[in-house]
């Protein structure tokens, strides 16, 4: 009886994932104008204010613990929403980069590859930050340390960037 409990949810999960990727709500990007029309303007300064430690300490001292937790959770939800919009922007930019990469100009191709690499790097960082925000939302009063696997992510990012740079250099030379 164990296998139906595992197999049927797995099948349902895959069907949901397939539906998700096929019927994505992301706008279709075929030209630069599509990016300009669908991009989200997300203010970095506002995001900084929402996750700033000094700001958090000030609120902790000014509010009761209950009010602080409620207020902090609202700030974290807003920060999460901003990161979601940045994530969507990143996905659109990756698409733009891939469209640019299919051109013939080697300089444009190289720049497109750099754009894609930057977007991928940002994507991995977003994953780290979102995990942290999730844990902070559950425990708003805690100062939660990031787990040590973050350095492995950084090494992965560095490797990705190095490999991309190498493939980009060989493309220009050829």
């Amino acid at each position: 009886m164990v296998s139906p409990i595992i197999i049927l949810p797995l099948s349902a999960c895959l069907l949901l994932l397939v539906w998700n990727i096929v019927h994505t709500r992301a706008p279709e990007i075929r030209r630069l104008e599509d990016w300009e029309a669908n991009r989200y303007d997300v203010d970095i300064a506002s995001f900084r204010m929402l996750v700033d430690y000094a700001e958090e300490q000030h609120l902790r001292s000014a509010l009761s613990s209950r009010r602080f937790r409620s207020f902090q959770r609202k700030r974290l939800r807003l920060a999460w929403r901003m990161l979601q919009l940045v994530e969507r922007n990143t996905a659109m930019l990756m698409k733009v980069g891939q469209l640019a990469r299919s051109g013939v100009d080697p300089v444009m191709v190289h720049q497109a590859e750099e754009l894609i690499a930057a977007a991928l790097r940002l994507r991995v960082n977003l994953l780290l930050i979102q995990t942290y925000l999730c844990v902070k939302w559950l425990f708003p009063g805690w100062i939660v340390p990031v787990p040590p696997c973050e350095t492995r992510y950084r090494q992965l990012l560095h490797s990705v960037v190095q490999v991309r740079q190498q493939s980009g250099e060989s493309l220009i030379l050829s």
Partner: protein
Amino acid sequence: MQASQSVATLLWILPLVIEATISFAMLRRKLAGQYPVFFSYTAFMPLRGVLLLFFQASAGPHFYIYWGGKAIAILLSLGAVFETVSQVLRSYPFLRRVVLWFFTVIVSVVIVGALVFLISRWQVASHKLLQQVMFLEREARLLLVCLWILFTILMSRLGLTWHRYPLGIAAGFAFYAALDLALLELRIDLNWIPDNFFLFLRSGAYNLAVGIWAYYFLPRRVERPVEQLPSTDLGRWNHVLMHYVDQWYRRS
């Protein structure tokens, strides 16, 4: 009774015709070289169908063509996972190497485990043989489902873009693997659906998968390259996020 037989025949012939059309379309557009495993699959399945039709009166050859063809189809489906990973991650060589290595390890472990299990419990009595073969088929589908789940989650988390053709290949195979696995489980383990209904649903699921491939491969679509890159604030966002990751990490 006649109507249900006609529907069953239609559901059997229709995907073979569509797959043959997809193979021709791939040859014309020179996609067969880019997606050789998927092309082999779409070429093989109609061929298998014709052979089954030809040998339908002979029980022995029909049995071997049916099950042998199914084994080849499952191997090609597994190959399609690797081909899709290879195509989609072509621009990210490090990531591609890691993912392909990881998937190879999973597949190797599962195959060895299945062989060990099979050798220890194999029974040649005919009524047990079919059950064991269906058990093997279910395990193969389970492996495919797990691989597709892992890959789609990875694609989603890294925000990598699905290109048109790999998306179509993945969607069709993943959709069919998920439905077929669920149907096999409902039929073999739970015994909730009768044989003829099981075969009808299975055929319907396969038709839907072929429909997905037809949707992605038959219409012609050209993507024009972008001539100018937009200005972005990715660098600033990266800088800010890295600053906070550093800050929170150092605090530990």
